[in-house]
């Protein structure tokens, strides 16, 4: 009896274990189960495929694997998309790395003119959805291979070749532009923390600057550079929106678009194969990163209070350097956003005559288009989609942020190390899984009722849950790092005066962590608003959101209207990011590194 009473009292005042186990079960269901189902689907006969596999539904089969890896079709349906994926991922990673590292050095280590402004301006592409650039590109370079409205270049009477308009080249260029800010942030931050005294010590010993770079700076920067490139590569493997917009006209397929097409044509088994391959590449890449980070920690000498980054004088190189930086800003920000903006106020793209300009696509009435009679800002469909986006993504981010802080709490406070480890790993796992594969996994798991859970497909719930799962890596990292910095004293002190667990959470932990919570909510919100793959797979017309709305407008060839929506999405993402910076006072780079 006494034992019962004592454990009951301790459950009320310290339910860390119980909460931890509940969280573990929840994430097992939300994250592990869908991924497990993907592998199951890959190896069992899917409904409708009985004749092909010559087994019953649900029986084991290697049909899908064989078809993908070693059939007459393999070259077209698997190997070519795989090569395309690897090519665009590696080339864009290397290009972004080379350009981004150079610019980071200019911004952090030289007296580059206007570097304060440039270091904000050059980061902007990172805050914009990648497919913004894809749409801008088509608006500029679209040719007559595809019907509909002409591109700007066509408007000048030129015909851009297919290789410039669609496929690998524009995809690589866009992914490079989108990733350069990521390199600037990560490498720039590492450069900033690199103590100049390390270089000065070498200089005192007579080393020339070439030698110092080679023997001191480069080796010390290597972990940051490699880590940035692996993260970019893993991200690029799963990139869906850019090849989706630019690849279609020339049948340029990547693993992500193949996966989408397989789902669209009811080939769940093949979709599972693509998802598994994308996941495998992601897991391998990030395991390499984790392993290298562990290696590099051994000589983590960077930092220290006295650390100071001295700037080199550019001298006569000032003009070319500034020109380079401004060009990058023009190509990465001014050109795409300007093109989109311009396209939305012109009836016919590329014709610069006075009567061709109009604000009708923003605020017009009685437009000549069939499905859209009003300008976007006056259209109910837009505001409904915007409200759906904000509501679904907002709710998901709120849930993710709160869960992230709870995960942080359990990871730091749990008396069981295995539980802390398991939660940390599971919540990080979606990072290894590209959104498109994750969405496929969710479709597999929640398309039909399972146990007490009804079929969620077609409801906002599936989207909401997928968003929560997809954003848990950011949210749980934010939560863990915030909780690690908060000693247990403040909570123990509340406990000593008799505050129960829920009261401690409500009155002590959450109020103290409200800054961290805001970041843990806003980061997922921005990345959710920008995202495409989850929405395109899981949203149905009843839950129209901004992303699907704009892609539908693209399909209808309502380019101007589509671009208005995209600009609005960019505006939300940009505003949100600036809001985070305002709230935390910390730079985005610190958020990325935690």
């Amino acid at each position, binding site marked *: 009896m006494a034992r019962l009473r004592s454990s009951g009292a301790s459950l009320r005042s310290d339910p860390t274990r119980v909460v931890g186990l509940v969280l573990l079960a929840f994430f097992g269901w939300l994250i592990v189960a869908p991924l497990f189902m993907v592998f199951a689907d890959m190896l069992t006969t899917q409904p409708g495929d009985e004749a092909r596999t010559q087994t019953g539904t649900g029986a084991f089969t290697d049909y899908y694997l064989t078809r993908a890896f070693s059939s007459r079709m393999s070259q077209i349906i698997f190997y070519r998309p795989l090569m395309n994926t690897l090519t665009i991922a590696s080339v864009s990673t290397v290009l972004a790395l080379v350009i981004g590292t150079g610019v980071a050095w200019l911004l952090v280590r030289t007296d580059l003119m206007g570097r304060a402004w440039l270091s904000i301006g050059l980061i902007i592409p990172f805050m914009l959805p990648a497919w913004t650039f894809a749409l801008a590109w088509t608006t500029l370079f679209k040719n007559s291979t595809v019907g509909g409205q002409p591109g700007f270049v066509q408007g000048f009477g030129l015909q851009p070749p297919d290789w410039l308009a669609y496929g690998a080249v524009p995809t690589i260029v866009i992914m490079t532009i989108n990733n350069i800010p990521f390199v600037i942030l990560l490498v720039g931050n590492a450069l900033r923390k690199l103590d100049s005294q390390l270089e000065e010590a070498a200089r005192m010993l007579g080393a020339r600057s070439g030698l110092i770079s080679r023997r001191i700076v480069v080796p010390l920067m290597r972990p940051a550079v490699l880590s940035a490139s692996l993260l970019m590569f893993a991200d690029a493997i799963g990139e869906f929106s850019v090849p989706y917009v630019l690849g279609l006209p020339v049948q340029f397929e990547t693993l992500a678009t193949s996966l989408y097409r397989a789902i669209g044509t009811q080939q769940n088994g093949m979709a599972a194969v693509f998802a598994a391959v994308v996941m495998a590449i992601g897991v391998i890449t990030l395991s390499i990163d984790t392993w290298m980070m562990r290696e590099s920690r051994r000589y983590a000498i960077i930092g220290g209070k006295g650390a100071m980054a001295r700037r080199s004088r550019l001298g006569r190189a000032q003009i070319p350097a500034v020109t380079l930086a401004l060009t990058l800003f023009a190509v990465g920000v001014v050109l795409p956003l300007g093109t989109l903006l311009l396209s939305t106020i012109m009836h016919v793209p590329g014709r610069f005559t006075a009567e061709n300009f109009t604000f009708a696509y923003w605020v017009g009435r009685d437009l000549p288009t069939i499905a859209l009679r009003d300008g976007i800002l006056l259209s109910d469909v837009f505001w409904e989609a915007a409200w759906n986006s904000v509501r679904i993504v907002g709710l998901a981010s709120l849930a993710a942020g709160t869960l992230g802080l709870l995960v942080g709490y359990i990871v730091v406070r749990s008396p069981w190390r295995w539980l802390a480890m398991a939660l940390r790993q599971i919540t990080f796992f979606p990072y290894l899984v590209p959104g498109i594969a994750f969405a496929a996994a969710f479709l597999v798991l929640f398309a039909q009722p399972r146990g007490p859970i009804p079929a969620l497909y077609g409801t906002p719930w599936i989207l909401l849950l997928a968003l929560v799962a997809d954003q848990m890596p950011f949210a749980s990292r934010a939560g863990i790092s915030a909780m690690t910095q908060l000693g247990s004293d403040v909570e123990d002190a509340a406990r000593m*005066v008799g505050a129960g667990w829920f009261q401690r959470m409500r009155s002590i932990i959450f109020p103290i962590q409200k800054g961290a919570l805001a970041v843990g909510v806003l980061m997922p919100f921005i990345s959710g608003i920008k995202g495409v793959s989850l929405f395109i797979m899981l949203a149905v017309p009843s839950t129209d959101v901004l992303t699907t709305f704009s892609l539908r407008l693209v399909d209808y060839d309502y380019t101007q209207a589509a671009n208005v929506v995209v600009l609005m999405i960019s505006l939300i993402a940009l505003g949100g990011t600036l809001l985070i910076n305002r709230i935390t006072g910390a730079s985005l780079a610190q958020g990325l590194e935690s």
Partner: protein
Amino acid sequence: MPQIDITHLTKRFGADAPAVDDVSFTVEDGSFTCILGPSGCGKSTLLRMIAGLERASEGEIAVDGTVVDGPRQGLFTPPETRGVGLVFQSYALWPHMTVEDNIAFGLKVQRMSTQARKARVAEMIETLQIGGLERRYPSQLSGGQQQRVALARTLALAPKVLLLDEPLSNLDAALRLHMRAELARLHREFGTTIVFVTHDQWEAMTLATHIAVVSEGRLQQMGTANDIYDRPAHRFVAEFIGNPQINIFEAGSAMARKLGTDMTVAWRPETVTLADVGLPARVRAVLPTGGSWIVELDLPEHRAPLLMSTNRRPDIAPGQAVTIAPPTELHLFDAGGQRHASDPISHPLEALTQP
């Protein structure tokens, strides 16, 4: 009566050596007891177990004769119902609440009426002399003010036992003296039993009525300040307490043999005096410490300098030959570090003057 009985208390974290290892002692009702030991000795774990923030692995803690933690019987009273207050070393003030809110929080949790709560908060603010700071946030307070708020927050609930974690260590020298007096006053006024932990012997000696010396998770000695200073029960206690540190002649060393014992000998620096006859030595250095002096003496048979401390300015210079008076208060410890005889031994002059 809030007396705390600790019996065979052990705490293990994982497979490592226990943080607290079979500790037994009694905190007398109304006493001001200090748990003293070097950092990492398990003293904070011990305090957290008394508070109820850690659960014992073995043994028992009883407050007022009621077992509050007894793993064998499956008894455990959570901290909130133990009637024990704890002031953290970092003070752990909630940074998002004002001073007033910090103090009132516990009262709110206990569902005290608004009126009574206000009165109690005002009373605590008056007692701890922090009037005028009610609306400030912890970050706007000095270290000493923060500590007063932390004390007020804890004392507001009138705990039977007050636990303090390193109460003076975060304060500067002037404030330490002041808070020392303040804590003594609170002890008198509230009449509570106070237990505090510290690694600072000055803090322990000046505040505590009783001191429990802990090292490597074990209780080495429990007694009054004078007890443990005059009759250290263990070699560790002799070495840990006293400034400058006690002189040690290891068992079997030339000096120990000369003093006529096969045990380890310890000799307090303040009982070392100069005389006309005795041990020949040479002055190595004279170090003024402000009001007192430490003299380092070279003995022919001993490598480390013999320390002598004195409150009178020594009229000697480095290099000068002197003679040390035969020791009158030596402590002897056996190979296991246990004290040999209950009283400090003295030595006949002949033993030393023999060649």
